[in-house]
């Protein structure tokens, strides 16, 4: 089995995997990073979204081998110790989650959306951009609220840095 080497949440990791292994399987089964979820088998639901080299990607659409050499960040890697990422805090404060299953993918997608749009986000844009993430619990109402709230928080956080 080929060896895949990549950086995950700032740590260099390697794993021997079958060629057909998907990145999401590598993360969950080999690295025990079970925060990244699988909600479908057609790359529609977005529960498995992670960041590869800073971009949101559905980790079920990527072979583990294709991610070789890249820098992957998962839901487990975005808080600084006990300090939540502003997007995580916004989801909690705005009740942007219920069962929690789609949440990691939502948060990873949402961070990418805010990174791309900065302060120019409005409700329609958030709803359009979240098209690739399915939630069955919240009706998206509070997810949209969370993302807009986090956009403000992330701007403040960036300004402070």
């Amino acid at each position, binding site marked *: 089995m080929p060896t895949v080497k990549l950086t995950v949440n700032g740590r260099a990791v390697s794993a021997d995997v079958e060629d057909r292994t998907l990145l999401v399987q590598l993360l969950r089964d080999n690295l025990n990073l079970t925060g990244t979820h*699988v909600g479908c088998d057609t790359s529609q639901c977005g529960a498995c979204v992670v960041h590869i080299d800073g971009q949101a990607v559905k980790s079920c659409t990527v072979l583990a081998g294709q991610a070789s050499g890249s820098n992957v960040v998962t839901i487990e890697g975005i808080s600084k110790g006990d300090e939540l990422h502003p997007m995580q805090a916004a989801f909690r404060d705005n009740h942007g989650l219920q069962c*929690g299953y789609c949440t990691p993918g939502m948060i990873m997608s949402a961070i990418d959306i805010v990174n791309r749009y900065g302060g120019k986000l409005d409700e329609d844009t958030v709803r*359009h951009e979240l098209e690739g993430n399915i939630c069955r619990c919240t009706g998206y109402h*509070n997810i949209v609220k969370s993302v807009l709230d986090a956009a403000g928080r992330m701007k403040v956080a960036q300004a402070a840095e």
Partner: protein
Amino acid sequence: MGVEGIGASVVRKEDRRFITGKGRYVDDIKLVGMTFAQFVRSPHAHAKIKSIDTSAAAKMPGVVGVLTGKEIVEDKIGNLICGWAITSKDGTGMKMGAWPAMAPETVRFVGQAVAVVIAETKNQARDAAEAVVVDYEELPAVPDIRAAIKSGAPQLHPEAPGNVIYDWTLGDEAATDAAFKSAANVVSLDITNNRLVPNAMEPRAAIAEYNEAEEHFTLYTTSQNPHVARLVLSAFYNIAQEHKLRVVAPDVGGGFGSKIFIYPEEMVALWASKKVRRPVKWTGDRSEAFLTDAHGRDHLTKAEMAFDASNKITGLRVKTYANLGAYMSLFSSSVPTYLYATLLSGQYNIPNIFAEVISVYTNTVPVDAYRGAGRPEASFVVERLMETAARQLKVDPGELRRKNFITSFPHQTPVIMAYDIGDFGASLDSAMKAIDYAGFPARKDKAKSEGKLRGIGFSCYIEACGIAPSKAVGSLGAGVGLWESAEVRVNPVGTIEILTGSHSHGQGHETTFCQLVAERLGVPISQVQIVHGDTDKVQFGMGTYGSRSAAVGLTAILKAMEKVESKAKKIAAHQLEASEDDIVIENGEFKVTGTDKTIALPMVALAAYTAHNLPDGMEPGLKEGAFYDPTNFTFPAGAYICELEVDPGTGKTSFVNFVAADDFGRLINPMIVEGQVHGGLAQGIGQALLEGAVYDSSGQLVTASFMDYTMPRADDLPSFKLNHTTTLCPGNPLGVKGCGEAGAIGASAAVINAITDAIGNNRLEMPATPDRVWHAIHGNA
């Protein structure tokens, strides 16, 4: 109300693990020596199994075992049961066909399991499953209700001639017929309630572990009701005795009804774990979810409403065909009967109601409870009829409803339910104000000038929740009681554990249940832990469905709390040398009223466990349990109004506004309640506009993935405007009614009423896709 007490929008305690990726769902669990199961499933809707050749699969790399339906039968594993007996109008019982966990001889729906491969890795199990050779002899299939009831239709089960499971009635037929004979006006509708796929985001999964030395099983499973799973698995399926089976439902990623039922996969995982003497894990993929999770709704209904000359309703007559799929799932029989026809009075004074429900078998996935379960179907019938009547009688839809509202309580309907309380006028007023109903005609004109068709639609729903008094449901055929249990444990250091038979799979119990403790004892919720979802920890429970966790589950906790408080007060009084009657509880302290003498809860708890100085004859410890059986259902109700625009060029619907005014009684955590309503509305709107399971004529599920079945996405939905009106439920001490299903029950009629108002054509089926709406506007040209 304290900052964390009842009525406070406390942020959820459970969120931290979910937002940091530390949730623990079944598929996240790994056991030492764990193997993986892959099912071999039927590609045919109806076929005889001529032979199954497992020899090639058994030789594949990593394969630990290949098991078939024949061995399930040989091992005397019980057939799946239906837990609610329904009696037909001719007095005969329901006609139930056998449902083995894997088919030994005949398959009756696409996706039914016929064999299972157990292997060292998931990929090896998948590869080997491909190598199992099944020789089928195809039989003609029955893909829907119309095909099932056609004379000469292919028969699914020998037990059910004509594919009819039961032909059940409720209400007074003669009186209702008489009401129609003397009616001034009659309104009638043919209604299809479209078939839905629940699609909780976490697919079902199970891990079974057998301990040979102890002859003991552990099952980790995606369940809304782990105790019921254990009961059914042990009492009926002959897999394990109850005390030799632990069922754990850890974090569960949504349920919406579909995770109430005990499915073949859990049974097979348990049975196989003993056969192969290794833990067995099965994780369904989304395709399997589409093909095996119980679907919802799927009714064909003819409904008629009679009015007198003053537009008062005098009668309602309903005939419904319900599709239960190929086999009777656990509560399938009750959904189109006692959870449906009993709600046909809606919010209205209807003196005469008669309903006939004929449930049929088809070669499709079994159909059972899905968010609302019977009540959305009833609400849709009543509210579509009311809107249609308003148009036919040329009266305002709000006024017609108001004229017929039930205004005095308690109110006995002609269909079993006795509504305890409500104020339907208040919720309608609230919703009409929120949407600025008076300004609608001007908005409609303006939209028209811009080439858009604008419509407005009402839906005044009522539901029966809590489900419910055990004696009542027992008399109606339920095989279980529907109470709830709780235990309150105060630890020696004063922290508190609440053990509950309710199960949270998104509802936020870990927060709301703590809020009750904070309210009563004045301790911070950080000092309270909710324990649920494990039959080894919680003695028994009926689980979460039917919007029952607050009304029944939380009341059970309250009852146990009262016992704990009573004992703690006795200890405090003894320690403070005061009378028990003078003790009050404030901010985590027991106080002698009118004095500065206090003792903190941890000291009372410590005294209870050291037992050095307790009142004479008192048992040590501070732990109490309670079982609570409600005296009635609860009746959440409300008014939804939808305003939307249709583009006549494309048939596309766009929301302008969606307002809700719900009466859920007392709200424990308004933030969480609103979240429940949002999610329910999304599912109701999804049914109205987007979702529909479609089978082709051969019984293939055409909509078997997220590419083909339209799930509501963020840009399909509006933001919602929620309002609340309040009448406290008199049936439980907290005054709560339940909020989990309301949105899904009320929303779809509001949407369809609005579209049909916009386009001026009342004939429109769900889902109202742009294609259907365009044709409803322009005809079939």
